């Protein structure tokens, strides 16, 4: 029962509430009132953690006795997660073959090639084709999206399978575990916050983050040995990242809130570095990229441009270092960055694995040898971290060699990895979904086109899928209601596993302009001309001729599905000095805009420039207050189809440190990244009847 607190305490509670809310109260008075109210810091037991009943499950598999033996079969009650696992209905009881249990996340699943071609299949074939004395079975328990906590759980469960060896191919999803660790420990959180926000010392913040990450990885290795017992052979295969052909996403390129005139300096250096590289001037590119890095070591783009400059000079080792550093800036959590293996994770495993008697296959090193020192890119990767068929072959060859050595077998070399190949359709679908996946995460046209062309090279049949996809993405209706999705789902059973990739976030659909254009161009190489169809559909669905279009809808400005992790406002926030919007218009038709905007914190009046297809069409006075403007774009600037509207925001000359807040975790990000401008309404139309003219 609850005991009703004394009504006399109400006065104390009133006083304490008032003091706490006033924000300028005495700690002594507050502490005294806390004491009088009996509020202490006594921790509450987390009852939610108790009561988990051991069911004997291993992921989606439940134990069953068949003919006196325990086998594990898929549990229908866990059907929702079946597609996260391999297409294996039953894990048999252990027999005479050496049992290798493969654990890991989507890389270990062979994401995009699975189920037609997986690391486990390749490894099994290699082991049994090349071992001189033992027979092997590889139990594929890899699971898409698995983080460190889940991996530990799966490992513990998998011991019931009596493995002769456990193989981990994992680590790409561990940033989330790091973030959880920091958010659940106020000491860690305040260290990171102090470095990142209070002191604005990015180097020191990185050191703290890496120190914590290393601690986390070390604890995982220790767990593996402790739980598995002293004798269980364990191999950890360290994943690699698509360094060359996976670059930072739009969300990862948000500009930091740099003190003084740092932002202006950084933007100027970026513009100069881009120009220098366009002109193939590597030295100037290096100088400008270094300026960017000096101003903001947390931003990936400076390192990427620096790497590009070194690539121009064919200095691959230097380029690799900078691309790795660019990749690792995801530690700063600008956005929900895609999975990756961080250097600190790799180094920790390399350093500490032996202590825990864990064997290591260092795939970055394996790939480097395979490429004769060149940097891995789209040859070995389908996207940021998932291997191509060749990537799987190379990685699994190295793993097989290690397994054979650890188990006392000699490798005969009879069956080379390169001889184990997926069929053409599997290749084609993998490249198609690679194109889609890369597009969803903001990769550039070139890489999308590469995968579209590859897909068509492997299978002409994929053209039908591309046509339907182009139709679907140009509809304003959500994909889940589109006729073309129904056709795609029913027309190709191989889509099953990846059908989620055909669905966009709710209310977050984009036109995927680069991907659709890449598909249209690739289809053209296969003799299919979809240009007119796509143009007409875009116009019908999104054109400003007959309707007022809200340019703040994601269709008209988002180029990826990555999402800002800080506070989301009720309006559009520009986190770069230029905001680009897409407008579907007609040649020789004027366009009318209605826009309400402001530049937060701007003390005096400033100007924004509005450009259509790169041509300035207006200059608008702005301030720190919301102002509303009607603009007209002359007919002769518009082109048929997609036009770009660019808002060029004022760049701050001097910035003071961001206001500090003591509590909200998302406030760390809000304080760390600068907002150039905000738009609350932005509509466009060519139809005077739907245009609202301001008085």
């Amino acid at each position, binding site marked *: *029962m*609850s*005991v*009703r*607190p004394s009504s006399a*305490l*109400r006065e*104390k*509670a*009133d006083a*304490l*509430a*008032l003091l*706490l*809310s006033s*924000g300028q109260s005495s700690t002594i008075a507050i*502490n005294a009132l*806390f004491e009088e*109210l*009996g*509020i*202490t*810091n*006594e921790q*509450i037991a987390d*009852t939610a953690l108790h009561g988990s009943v051991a069911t004997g499950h291993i992921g989606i598999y439940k134990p069953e006795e068949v003919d006196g033996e325990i086998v594990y079969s898929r549990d229908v009650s866990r059907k929702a997660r079946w597609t996260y696992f391999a297409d294996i209905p039953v894990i048999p009881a252990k027999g005479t073959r050496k049992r290798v249990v493969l654990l890991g996340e989507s890389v270990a699943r062979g994401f995009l090639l699975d189920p037609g071609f997986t690391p486990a299949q390749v490894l099994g074939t290699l082991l049994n084709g090349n071992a001189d004395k033992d027979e092997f079975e590889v139990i594929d328990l890899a699971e898409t999206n698995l983080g460190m906590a889940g991996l530990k759980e799966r490992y513990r469960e998998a011991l019931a399978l009596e493995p002769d060896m456990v193989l981990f191919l994992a680590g790409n999803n561990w940033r989330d575990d790091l973030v959880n660790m920091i958010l659940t420990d106020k000491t860690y959180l305040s260290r990171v916050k102090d470095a990142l926000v209070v002191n604005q010392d990015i180097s020191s913040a990185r050191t703290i983050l890496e120190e914590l990450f290393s601690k986390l990885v070390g604890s995982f290795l220790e767990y593996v040995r402790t739980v598995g017992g002293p004798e269980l052979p364990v191999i950890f295969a360290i994943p690699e990242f698509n360094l060359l052909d996976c670059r930072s996403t739009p969300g990862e390129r948000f500009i930091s809130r740099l003190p003084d005139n740092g932002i202006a300096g950084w933007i100027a250096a970026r513009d100069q570095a881009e120009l220098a590289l366009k002109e193939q001037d590597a030295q100037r590119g290096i100088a400008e990229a270094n300026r960017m890095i000096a101003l903001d070591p947390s931003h990936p783009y400076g390192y990427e441009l620096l790497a590009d400059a070194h690539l121009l000079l064919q200095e691959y080792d230097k380029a690799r270092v900078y691309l790795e550093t660019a990749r690792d800036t995801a530690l700063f959590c600008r956005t929900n960055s895609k999975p990756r293996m961080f250097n600190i994770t790799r180094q920790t495993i390399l350093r500490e694995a032996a202590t825990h008697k864990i064997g290591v296959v260092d795939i970055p090193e394996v790939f480097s040898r395979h490429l004769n020192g060149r940097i891995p890119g789209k040859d070995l990767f389908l996207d940021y971290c998932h291997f191509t068929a060749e990537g799987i072959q190379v990685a699994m060859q190295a793993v097989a060699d290690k397994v054979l050595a650890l188990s006392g077998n000699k490798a005969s070399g009879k069956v080379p990895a390169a001889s184990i190949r997926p069929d053409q359709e599997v290749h084609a679908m993998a490249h198609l979904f690679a194109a889609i996946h890369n597009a969803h995460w903001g990769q550039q046209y070139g890489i999308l086109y590469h995968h579209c062309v590859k897909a068509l090279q492997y299978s002409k049949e994929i053209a039908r899928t591309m046509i339907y996809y182009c139709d679907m993405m140009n*509809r*304003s*209706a*959500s994909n*889940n*209601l*589109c*006729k073309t*999705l*129904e056709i795609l*789902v*029913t027309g190709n059973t191989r889509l099953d596993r990846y*059908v*989620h990739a055909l*669905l966009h976030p*709710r209310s977050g659909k984009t036109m995927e302009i680069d991907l659709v254009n890449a598909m249209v161009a690739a289809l053209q190489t296969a003799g299919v001309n979809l240009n007119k169809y796509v143009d007409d559909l875009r116009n019908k*669905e999104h054109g400003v001729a007959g*309707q007022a279009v809200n340019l703040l809808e994601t269709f008209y400005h988002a180029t990826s599905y990555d999402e800002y992790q800080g*506070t*989301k*406002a*009720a*309006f559009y926030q520009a986190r770069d000095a230029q905001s680009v919007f897409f407008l579907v218009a007609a040649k020789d038709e004027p366009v009318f805009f209605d826009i309400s905007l*402001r530049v937060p914190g701007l003390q005096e009046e400033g100007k924004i420039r509005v450009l259509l297809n790169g041509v300035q069409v207006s200059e608008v006075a702005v301030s720190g*207050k*919301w*102002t*509303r403007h009607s603009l007209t774009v002359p007919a002769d600037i518009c082109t048929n189809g997609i036009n770009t509207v660019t808002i060029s925001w004022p760049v701050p000359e001097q910035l003071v440190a961001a206001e500090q807040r*003591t*509590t*909200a975790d998302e406030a760390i990000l809000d304080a760390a990244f600068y907002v150039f401008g*905000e738009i*609350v*309404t932005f509509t466009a139309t060519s139809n005077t009847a739907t245009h609202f003219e301001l008085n």
Partner: protein
Amino acid sequence: MSLNIIGISAFYHDSACCILQDGVLKAAVQEERFSRKKNDPDLPKAAFNYCLKEAGITISDIDCIAYYEDPVKKLSRQLWSGSRFITADSIRNTDHAAVERQIREQFGYDGPVRFYEHHLSHAASSYYYSGYDHAAILTVDGVGEWATTTYGIGKGAKLELFEEVSFPDSLGLLYSTITSYLGFSVNSGEYKVMGLAPYGKPLYVDKIRQLIRNGEAGQYELNMEYFDFLKGEKMYSEALPALFGLAPRKKETAILPVHEDIAVSLQVVLEEVLIEKARYLHEKTGAENLCMAGGVALNCVANGKILKSSPFKQLFVQPAAGDAGCALGAAALAHADLSGEGMTSQLEHVYLGPSYGSAEIKKLLSATSLRYTQHKDDEELVKQVAQRLAEGKVIGWFHGRMEFGPRSLGARSILADPRGADMRDRINAMVKKREAFRPFAPAVLESATGEHFDIDHPSPFMLETCQVISSFDLPAITHVDGSARVQTVGEKTNPRFAALLKAFADLTGCPILLNTSFNVRDEPIVCNPEEALICFVTTDIDCLILEDFIIDNENNDTSILEMINQNLLERPSFELNPNVYTFI
């Protein structure tokens, strides 16, 4: 220049936003309808944007934002309550200016923000929209800041609360406690208890009376021996099962007669207390009119009894009587403060949400595989729909601006012929996917109400129950005790819905339809045409009317769309703690 006031309720459950323009309610909507998170508590950003758009203004045109609660007083009650989930550090680390800061930052607003107490907002949400210029006011809910029940009076533009019952004594929490004990979720399962009550016998009235002691004037007191909600973990103590001699019902297990008996016993005691307090309020105010709001005012069975058993002549219950409606109250209070005037007219309807045009819907439908027909002639459309209803079909009805509040009133409704014996079971099982005992309500043509229902005044918001006196057998909408929660439909406020009822009457002689909310269990009511389509393809609805368009299930193979939308679509979720009324 207009006086533009935004009203907000947020950060507990059912957040909502509304806009008053020169005292006229232009728009109001709950955030859950946009976010699709049932009971979404977050700052209503999408609802805010919608309100601005509907009023044709931008942020800089807002004169004031009115917030429905006093965060300082609420904090005081939280500190006093002694919840196990409060520690000194957790309180210290809380940003106590967060409400105003978030409003300013996330709405981009730098004008005045006014804070009004929770029950004052409830009271205003009823009185200022009632159309009365003199009324007594009764608000009853779980808890606001401190108050759980208040008594007040409204006269002209002036509203005053003169007495309150303070936390932890609360009729709302009493009801939620029994709700939890009966195996339903706190804060959302209370309707189910009300629906269960008529099946039972009041065998436990004496035991329920042991839970609450009546007090002087407007006061009453809970016997805390039976309650445990102050600790913040669960609603009832071990003494409650001991009192009833029955273990708490586990969720999703069989509902036994004893559960029905307890539900009706609770209902009886609730009505006793409310009637007595209403009589007291009448004595104090002398008013003929009574205004009610707060979650307990959604107990339409009790409302009817109050009106019958107290001296009040007229009753107005705010249709969004729960916390969402507080947004309306806060805005009205700010309007009164800034203009010195009350509201200009009675709330005649709650069609205050978004609407969607035919061009937009046609574009959507043309992207799908669905076969449809368009009927630009309203008369023809309603004839076609009435015909289908008469054939026993279940209709998804999407027309005009979405309703504000928990009830579907003919804008986002599922409709059916109320005469069919199996219609209730079919809709509960195949369409709504919910418990079999849940009753449905009727919508009746206003002009024909008296012939079929024992009620002598309009009930446009489905907030009163009355006896069914119709010559028709109406099993789908008649509760086990012969009552129904009726909605009267007038031509003025929803002409197309009224025309449909008339067309159905022309065909069948029956001017009544079963009307239930257009959603499935645990999801918010549909807001836009896409959500209506998803609900249509994933349930057993026979026909969907999207404004001028008719989509018949029998003309379409929706199996693939059903598979996609049932299995592949991620549904946002938010669930209030189902075990306890959370105060933190």
